[in-house]
């Protein structure tokens, strides 16, 4: 495209074509946050479950804080790697939703660890399931919507199973709610 004068019809056609061009297709980078946070949470959950089962030492629970410590740098790395050159309003909205939910999950985890004993795994799944469902609805992607609402419903399982094994339920739900739809989104974006 070079600089040339347009007639009025050309101008309108050009505007319409460029706006159409920016309509976001599913890109594999959209699946990356689900995979990063999904896999990180599953690995840390299994570590906590293993050491808690083996030792019974409550201090093993401090390992949960490895999730943001590992997940945040990984996200930074993958965001740079999958830089797509454009940021849409939808990207910003989704980013803010997860920022708020992530901070809420962190605060509530600190509260559960140090101040108040309540079913934290249930609450975290409920929060993350809500974020997943909202993201799916915004990007109109059915597997993410189903995974999100599935996570919200199945979060109740964390209330029904007591003791250390509830951590396995928690890890399993992250697999269904984030890793599986993350891979579907990644594969769809790659095509």
């Amino acid at each position, binding site marked *: 495209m070079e600089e040339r004068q347009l007639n*009025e019809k050309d101008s309108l056609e050009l505007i319409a074509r460029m706006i159409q061009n920016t309509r976001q297709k599913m890109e594999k980078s959209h699946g990356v946050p689900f995979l990063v946070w999904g896999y990180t949470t599953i690995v840390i959950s299994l570590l906590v479950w293993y050491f808690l089962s083996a030792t019974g030492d409550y201090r093993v629970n401090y390992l949960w804080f490895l999730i943001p410590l590992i997940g945040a740098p990984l996200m930074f790395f993958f965001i740079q790697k999958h830089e797509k050159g454009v940021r849409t309003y939808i990207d910003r909205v989704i980013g803010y939703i997860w920022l708020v939910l992530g901070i809420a999950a962190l605060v509530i985890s600190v509260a559960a660890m140090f101040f108040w004993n309540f079913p934290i795994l249930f609450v975290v799944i409920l929060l993350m399931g809500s974020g997943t469902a909202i993201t799916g609805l915004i990007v109109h992607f059915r597997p993410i919507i189903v995974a999100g609402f599935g996570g919200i419903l199945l979060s109740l399982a964390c209330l029904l199973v007591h003791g250390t094994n509830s951590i396995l339920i928690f890890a399993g739900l992250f697999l269904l709610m984030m890793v599986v739809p993350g891979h579907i989104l990644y594969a769809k974006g790659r095509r």
Partner: protein
Amino acid sequence: MFEPLDPLLHSELRLAVISILISVEEADFVYLREKTGATAGNLSVQINKLNEAGYIKVERGFIGKRTRTVCKISSKGIDAFEKYVEALKSYLDPRDRTD
């Protein structure tokens, strides 16, 4: 009467850049070049013209070791684009004409 068309926007490449930036939050130079199909040199000149007119904001930064130029439309640019589209309508819709 026909409304005058903003000469800064009434050129193919500058209008293409503004049309892209009106529909996204921000876009970098590589993305704009890919979507417009323009040469790097020409795109750079037109981006500078839009920047000097205050229609867009240009930020230069780094991703790792690579430089990255990011463009965003300004509120002045949004106003100019809206006026341009309104003016175009007066050319295309005879009911809007008073002459």
